């Protein structure tokens, strides 16, 4: 029987396509072929990392188009893409990419828009612009070679050149040179060679080619296609050499693009999406409005960015620095005078604030409309910083808190202790709440407090189940100190960075692949060195088992 060609392509991935999409990052249990296991750490060689066929993430796709056709994007061009499905909080996971009809339609529409605009400036794509019909054939071939090389990010094969040359010639005969050029761009923008990072994955363990590696490095460090220098280095075979590879990595890390690319990771790692949809109770927080919400998020992003690139550079600073970006909107939240309308790096009260965990934006994101959310805050610490996310609650559990009345005389913590004390809950909640109660000093807007409903808050907590961070602490400042000294936090971050770089979840990363990165971070106390270590590591540079 004729296969249903128009049939539901989106479902055709068959088995093994499960996505873990929990906001709290619960474990995924893949289908069919069994759980996806990290490579075994036996033998002396570090196993190559997983290398699933990966489509450019939305940000990467848009950045790539912007870099290839800058004059098109000098005007306001509206590209449409479906939203992405997160896996363990990250949006670039290969397994979660479904080629829905909407995606295909969007890519098709975007290709038409961009190609039409690009064709208005053909000389910017290929210098050979035919003055008369006699050179059209030659210019067509040059155009095809220039475009394919840019968009496929690698040297071209004879077969594909024949196909594209033939297409160009036919289209030129049927229409004209400009139309042929436009249609070639339109096709390239929908080609799997452009949309996917194509790596040959048949066969045993091997080093990536220079061009494959250039593409990986570029998307990791710049969220975009390789620039001219990187392609030149690949062309010269320099990326197989440890020294010149590291030099290229350091060069890219020094570009402004690296800042936005790392910000993209940090945003997903630290769940800044929690700050996207802030809603706060009007009666309790009358000054809260969309402008405050926007600044809360921006200030938190800039805090992380500042530590990463400008000051401190390490997890220690990230978890203990007592500055914040403050402006007129945020000064009432942090207390103290406002430095003005512009967000400004400001020393805030070191007895109240220390590191990312006490940033008002993050606390407001990990909260409800009226009160803080110790469970969300605790899960955040366990999942994002310690990589020990507990399983989610059983489906049949009543998770509603008691009704709060003005004479309830119970803090949020006391209510939770009541409902989480049962044997069903205590198993997980001793770990979750142990971390989460440490944030009782921060209300639903991230303001520091010592009382809730007129009762003193109790910010004491306890970390359990870690290799080196276990023990009691009092308040988020002590918690930050504790985590800043933890090797497990560094290991957890390294595994997440490596998973992100390979478009898999951290569950598919083996310790022997990520631990060298963590060790480098531990030695250098510099997050940028973690990236150098990652981009030059065997897990990143090799494919195949």
């Amino acid at each position, binding site marked *: 029987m*004729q*296969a*249903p*060609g*128009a*049939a*539901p*392509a*989106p*479902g*055709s*991935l*068959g*088995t093994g*396509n*499960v*996505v873990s*999409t929990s906001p709290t990052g619960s474990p995924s*249990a893949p*289908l069919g072929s069994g759980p996806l296991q990290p490579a075994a750490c036996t033998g002396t060689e570090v196993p190559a990392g997983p290398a*699933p*066929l990966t489509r450019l993430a939305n940000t990467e796709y848009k950045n790539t188009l912007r870099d290839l056709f800058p004059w098109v994007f000098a005007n306001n061009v509206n590209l*449409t893409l*479906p*939203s*992405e*499905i997160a896996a363990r909080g990250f949006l670039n996971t290969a397994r979660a990419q*479904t080629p829905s*009809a*909407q995606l295909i*339609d969007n890519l*098709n*529409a975007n*290709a038409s828009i961009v190609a039409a605009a690009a064709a208005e400036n053909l000389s910017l794509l290929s210098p050979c612009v035919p003055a008369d019909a006699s050179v059209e054939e030659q210019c067509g071939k040059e155009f095809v070679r220039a475009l394919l090389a840019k968009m496929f990010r690698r040297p071209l*094969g004879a077969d594909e050149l024949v*196909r*594209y040359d033939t*297409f160009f010639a*036919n*289209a030129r005969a049927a*229409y004209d040179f400009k139309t042929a050029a436009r*249609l070639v761009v339109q096709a390239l923008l*929908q*080609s*799997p*060679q452009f*949309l*996917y990072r194509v790596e040959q*994955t048949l066969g045993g363990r091997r080093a990536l080619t220079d061009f494959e590696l250039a593409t990986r490095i570029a998307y990791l460090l710049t969220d975009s296609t390789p620039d001219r220098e990187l392609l030149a280095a690949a062309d010269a075979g320099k990326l197989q050499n440890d020294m010149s590879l590291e030099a290229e990595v350091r060069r890219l890390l020094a570009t402004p693009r690296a800042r936005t690319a790392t910000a993209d990771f940090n945003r997903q790692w630290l769940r800044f999406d929690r700050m996207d949809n802030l809603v706060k109770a009007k*009666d309790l927080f009358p000054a809260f409005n969309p402008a405050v919400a926007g600044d809360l998020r921006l200030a938190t992003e800039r805090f992380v960015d500042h530590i990463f690139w400008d000051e401190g550079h390490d997890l220690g600073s990230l978890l203990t620095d007592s500055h914040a970006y403050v402006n007129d909107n945020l000064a009432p939240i942090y207390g103290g005078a406002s430095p003005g309308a512009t967000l400004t790096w400001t020393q805030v009260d070191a007895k109240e604030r220390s590191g990312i965990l006490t940033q008002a934006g993050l606390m407001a994101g990990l909260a409800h409309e*009226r009160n803080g959310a110790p469970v969300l805050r605790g899960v955040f610490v366990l999942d994002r910083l310690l990589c020990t996310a507990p399983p*989610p609650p059983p*489906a*049949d559990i*009543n*998770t*509603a808190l*008691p*009704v*709060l009345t003005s004479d309830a005389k119970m803090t949020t913590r006391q209510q939770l202790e009541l409902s989480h004390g049962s044997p069903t809950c205590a198993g997980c909640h001793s770990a979750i709440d142990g971390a989460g109660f440490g944030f009782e000093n921060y209300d639903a807007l991230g303001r520091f407090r010592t009382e809730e409903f007129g009762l003193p808050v109790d910010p004491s907590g306890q970390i359990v189940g870690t290799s080196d961070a276990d023990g009691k602490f009092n308040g988020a400042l002590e918690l930050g100190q504790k985590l800043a000294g933890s090797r497990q936090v560094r290991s957890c971050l390294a595994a997440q960075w490596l998973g992100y770089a390979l478009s898999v979840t951290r569950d598919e990363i083996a310790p022997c692949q990520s631990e060298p990165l963590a060790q480098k971070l531990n030695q250098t106390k510099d997050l940028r060195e973690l990236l150098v270590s990652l981009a030059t590591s065997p897990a990143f540079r090799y494919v195949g088992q």
Partner: protein
Amino acid sequence: MKFPTLPRRAFLRAMGLVSAGAALPAPFLYPRGGYAQGSIPKRVLFFHSGSGVSRQVNVFRAAGGGVATETDFVFPEVRSPLNAIREQLITFENLDMVSATVDPTSASNAHYNGETHCLAATNRADGEVAGGPSLDQYIAAAINSPKAVTKVPSLQMAVQTDGNVSGTKVCTAGSGQVIPLNPNPEENYNRLFAGFTGPQAPPAARVGDSPAQIAAKQQKSVLDLVLGDFDAVRPTLGKADQEKLDAHASAVRDLEMRIQVGASGATGAFTPGAGCADPTRSILNGSGNSYPGEASMYRANFDAMARIVQAGFACDLTRVVLMNVGEPFGSDWGYNSGDFGSNDAHDLIHKTSYGNAGTLKGDAGAMAAVQRLHQLECVQFVTMLDLLRQIPEADGKSLLDHTIVVWSSQIAEHGHDVDQLPWILAGGSEAGFKPGRFLKYPRNGGNGAPHNNLFVSIAQGTGLQLEKFGNESVCTGPLDRLRV
């Protein structure tokens, strides 16, 4: 064509219809004579909402006050706006998400329990993702096989994307394959109406191609070139990567066929009637996708999307829509954060459950508030139905008569229960659904009628031939007495 087409077997497996290694079932996917040339197509609308209805107030009575019967029933006060159109609706007693109850994989949380089953009705892939296609995707794929019949196979829209109420993973192409809902009215509008030139009869003979025909020819040549690239890449990849690439290539081939359907929206099989018109971009006024936004934006989004459904169906640009309504803003039903000691609307809804979580079920003010919410949802539903009823079809019936409308929800009740679904069917009288009925089913071994059976009936109503949907161990065939 050089590129290997997706084998039928892979298609069936992807749709969750056959497990690897099992014998193929008898063919049942293709409509048999469902869409003769020019016949009026069936459409399906899933009007999906978040929270179900508190069970203790969702009790049907006869008009005179006694026990409700199949034809003598009155919607309870909590859904009183539906009484005006009761004769056009079908509702149920003891319709259950049995497939969720028997799923061996536990859900990651109470919302995901219903989320992964409400439209897919089969064992989960994991704690948060459905293990098969949602019914809308199943129907869209099947009626567009082997050949595309509409410009867009299906639309998935969300009036509101609220993490609490979820609905974000309700739509799946197959096991583990989530299709995101699009919350942006403008993008949904563009997808259907960009380049729309109105319903057209087959073009009269003319010299040369029209601009639209030239554009379609160019698109076809471009996509053929693209498919050649898929062909070239494929042999270099491992099996899992090939499957992923094949899925993408298959979707490109699908697009190629849909483009030939034509920018006019005319499929060749059916020419839309006088009721078809571009609703124009004016319907987008006030809409947007910036959540949380404002109540006014929510209302504008609802209105825009409802009109997109109306016109999209009327012009036969798509035949399947999933519209996740989410939940109206509290300010539109008189709720403010903190009322009755609740944290937010989500919290209040849970606290008005009949069950343990329902700590406010005895609070008259709280119950009145959620009643206002549900009555407002009913008004939305009636509005949607009115828009479909306004469109005349060539047979003298309305678009609604040719549209099966399902009011589905993630959970049945405010306490997350997934049995005794308060779902409602409307329209579809030309698809065999006889309205004006309250269908009661017995409980066997604790379970009511499986909603899988309802899905079989809906699929059959669209002209598809199948006897099972989703988890076959709980599905016993079409829902008893539903279609006549």
